[in-house]
């Protein structure tokens, strides 16, 4: 039997984490191939509805990553994002959505190794948690059957 391989979506900003992940590549640091990166101009652009959409569409875990505080290419996008995630996490938690499955991080363009480490530890964590059936079921049950 093959081991459970979580589906991970990474929502990252173009300037820090996307570039950081590029650096992971240029440094040839290996990490789990379970992750799919989606490029956004800035963490400030990332809509929370995309996160629930990702879960509904089959993601077992999500990584949201951008520039460290004060490093935002656009000055404040990550600060707005940080607030948004605070509130969103609180809501998720209240509604029983598993916040362990949404990993937020700051990965700068210089932190190629950190990116690999974030993905790998997320991968391990999501493996432990197993498939996010609760949410998947939500979107597939009822009339889809």
């Amino acid at each position, binding site marked *: 039997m093959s081991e459970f391989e979580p589906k991970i979506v990474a929502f990252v900003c173009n300037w820090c984490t996307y570039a950081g992940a590029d650096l992971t590549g240029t440094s040839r640091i290996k990490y789990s191939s379970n992750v799919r990166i989606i490029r956004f101009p800035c963490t400030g652009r990332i809509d929370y*509805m995309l996160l*629930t959409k990702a879960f509904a569409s089959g993601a077992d875990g999500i990584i949201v990553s951008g520039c460290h505080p004060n490093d935002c290419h656009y000055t404040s996008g990550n600060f707005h994002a940080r*607030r948004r995630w605070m509130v969103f996490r609180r*809501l998720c938690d209240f509604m029983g959505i598993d916040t362990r499955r949404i990993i937020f991080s700051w990965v700068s363009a210089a932190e190629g190794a950190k990116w690999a480490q974030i993905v790998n530890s997320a991968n391990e964590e999501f493996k432990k948690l197993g498939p996010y059936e609760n949410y998947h079921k*939500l979107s597939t049950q009822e009339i889809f059957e």
Partner: protein
Amino acid sequence: MEEIKKIAKQLLSENKIQMVIGFEKGTANKVRPAFFKNADDVEKLIYNDTCIHNLALYLKKDICHHIANVGIIANPNVVRSIIQLASENQVKEEKITIIGISYEGKCVGILDFKAAEEFAKTQPKGLKPEDRAFIEKIQAMPLEERFNYWVETFSTCVKCYACRASCPMCYCGKCNVETNNPQWIPVASHKYGNMEWHIMRAMHLAGRCINCGECTRACPVDIPLNMLSYMLTDFVMDEFHTEAGLSTTYAPALSSYTNVDKENFIK
């Protein structure tokens, strides 16, 4: 009540306002929102402690569009709503005359926005003990049970959008649920569509909700959806020390930030 009537009549007869939004007798022993356009009509105006509808809602509806100045019988919830709407550029001070009423039902006269801000601050608005108990009950559930609770609770939602329609803060010309390219929220009132709709609504109200409870009162299937935004109001208060509906220059929690917002959850 007589004082309210007196003020309303005077304003109307002096043509300082062209309409008063208030209450009249409704079906059986209910009250209903009513709109008085002349001083004589005002005789029908009533105010008692069942007058809980958030009348601020109507300031954003068709009926107020072409009226130069609208008077509104405003309990603290309405006042807060108006202040919040003003901070979001949705109502203009010169078009509204607020006739303020305290939680105890005492008329405090006509309030300009500045006075309304002061008034709102004197009218405490915390969570009611039963609401807090409800929230705590939910929080005490294990994760999965919490999830199932909400899924089941929302499964009865018929998506009639009475919650949206009766909320003064839901004034978008085109609600997110009505955008269809992409279709952010499934149109159907199935479990998934309902869950997404309520997540989105709670997020949109985070830091803006003034906790009037109209959404739940309006819900034909009695879903306690106000608990989501109440809980977030509380959270926003704790984390960011801001509260909606107290200042016309308020920057809602989700469109502002500080450099020291907590980030212990960020790796």
